[in-house]
């Protein structure tokens, strides 16, 4: 994530439906949105922004499979090769008894792996400081932001016109 200073022109909306319409309009006018910020997930927004689908579930599956194999193979090795002991008259390779732990480790690896992946790809960790455009975005305002670092006045005006035509309640500039 580039940490060089950016100039951001952003507009705040009061309602997510108005926001969605604005996003659609921006796509129609081929305006390049830097990002959209909302206080809660807005249904249909990722589609409107043509965001590619998250692949976290694939990571989850892979981590889970690693957990399954780790658990099952380890227990098999311990009880058939390393130190075989007869428990309750059962065979050394007591597959039914291996299932509960195998299942738990699958879930554990999958969950931890996915959560760590999630925070990694989002660039988040304890203490990450992300410059917020406006404190009210996590409250009740919806924000469309454009990167105007290298933009000239015409683009700025176009964007401001876009904001006022789509019903933004405020438009501001910030350097982050």
């Amino acid at each position, binding site marked *: 994530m580039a940490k060089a200073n950016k100039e951001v022109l952003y507009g705040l909306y009061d309602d997510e439906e108005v926001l969605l319409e604005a996003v659609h309009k921006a796509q129609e006018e081929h305006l390049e949105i830097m990002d959209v910020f909302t206080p809660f997930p807005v249904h249909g927004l990722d589609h409107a922004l043509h965001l590619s689908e*998250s692949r976290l579930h694939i990571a989850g599956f892979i981590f889970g499979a690693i957990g399954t194999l780790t658990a099952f193979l380890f227990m098999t090795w311990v009880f058939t090769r390393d130190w075989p002991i007869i428990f309750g008259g059962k065979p050394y390779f007591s597959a039914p008894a291996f299932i*509960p732990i195998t299942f738990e480790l699958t879930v554990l690896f999958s969950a931890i792996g996915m959560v760590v992946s999630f925070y990694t790809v989002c660039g988040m960790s304890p203490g990450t400081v992300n410059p917020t455009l406006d404190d009210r975005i996590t*409250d*009740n305002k919806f924000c469309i932001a454009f990167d105007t670092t290298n933009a000239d006045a015409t683009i700025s005006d176009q964007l401001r016109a876009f904001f006022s035509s789509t019903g933004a309640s405020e438009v501001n500039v910030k350097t982050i």
Partner: protein
Amino acid sequence: MSAVVSPIRDPLIEGGKTYGQITEDICSPTERVPSLAWTVAFIIAVLGLGLYVFTVVWTIFYGIGSWNLNRTIGWGWDITNFVWWIGIGHAGTLISAILLLFRQKWRTGVNRAAEAMTIFAVVCAGQFPLIHMGRLWLGFFIFPYPNTRGPLWVNFNSPLLWDVFAISTYFTVSLLFWYTGLVPDFATLRDRSKGIRRKLYNTVSFGWTGAAKHWQRFESLSLVLAGLSTPLVLSVHTIVSFDFATSVIPGWHTTIFPPYFVAGAIFSGFAMVLTLMLITRKVLKLEQYITLAHIESMNKVILVTGTIVGVAYLTELFIAWYSGYLYEQYAFYNRVLGPYWWSYVGMMACNVLSPQIFWVKKFRRSITITFVMSIFVNIGMWFERFVIIATTLARDYIPSSWSYYTPTWVEIGIFIGTLGLFFTLYLIFTRVAPVVAVAEVKSILKTAGDQYVGPNAKHQHETETAKTASH
């Protein structure tokens, strides 16, 4: 999610709230000076916690002999409490995960607190396997790590070890699920605060900005975690039931235990959620977010799971007769008419009979009755574990081994102490985090808020999202 809402549904957010009001209502309790009610409750809870520390230190210092476990009742209040606490913890995951998969919007009013309850309940439950070891400083032996004793591994074939993995996994995954959901809400608190408070909330919110891509990943993660947590919650109490069912003891070895334990866990968990929520909503003035509709839904779950538990009891009784197996039949005869008959009666009365009251709508929507019932259910579920454990062990195969068990003050103190531990943690939670999931409640406002849905709806709401979204 369907944006069209049937007119027959109750609104889930009352008071015609705006997004800003939701933030204010739910976040402000963490910003105010604690109320008198909170302070008094906290003092009592901390006293309980102190009792816990004292009795545990006493146990470690004087040994397990300070308890009344004997031959043949090797498991008494310790394991009863362990199963009781784990069972309570299940409701949180059910509300978060299973109700998410079933798209039940009402979960958003209670899921944050319920998930917190799960974590604290699991913390309390986890104490018992440790302290009942006696030499708890050797507790790490239960983990399979390479060592110089062979290496001597743990017995992966034993349900007691399956428990270790199950509860560790359950604690970890619940914590991750709860925390993931908390991050956006911590960001909300961060943006409302200044100075050191802001720095603290920034640390715990990981720099959350609310970017669209992040929310997209967040929803994907929540859904998969929910999908994982659902079989997980089933597996945890199933594995706990395996502690008993894998044995050959009559009354313990029965194939119905896994789903029956899970149903019972959900039953007691929801009761505890109700106990906590009824008090919380009153003290923090969140009645418009935790409405009678929420309470009624939870009471329905209690009725269903209580009935399932009742079906299981009757099945066990019938099959005990059907089996023709003398010892199995005696085990149940003993439960009903033996020296612990009072715990069986308590169990039946609290678990099977009393929830039937919830067939009546008026009672389902009564706060007083719900509160009383929530306590009864938890008492009943405690009795159920006691019946299964102590009653059964008291009279098994050989009459000359029969014994009786009453707890010592140390054991009683530990149990009350864990209540202190639980409430201490819960009360701290209510001070530092929003008790209701702020972002999630906002996301259902337009489909469940009373200005959009229900008898007082000012406008029938059909959002643009339904029209624009297509798959």
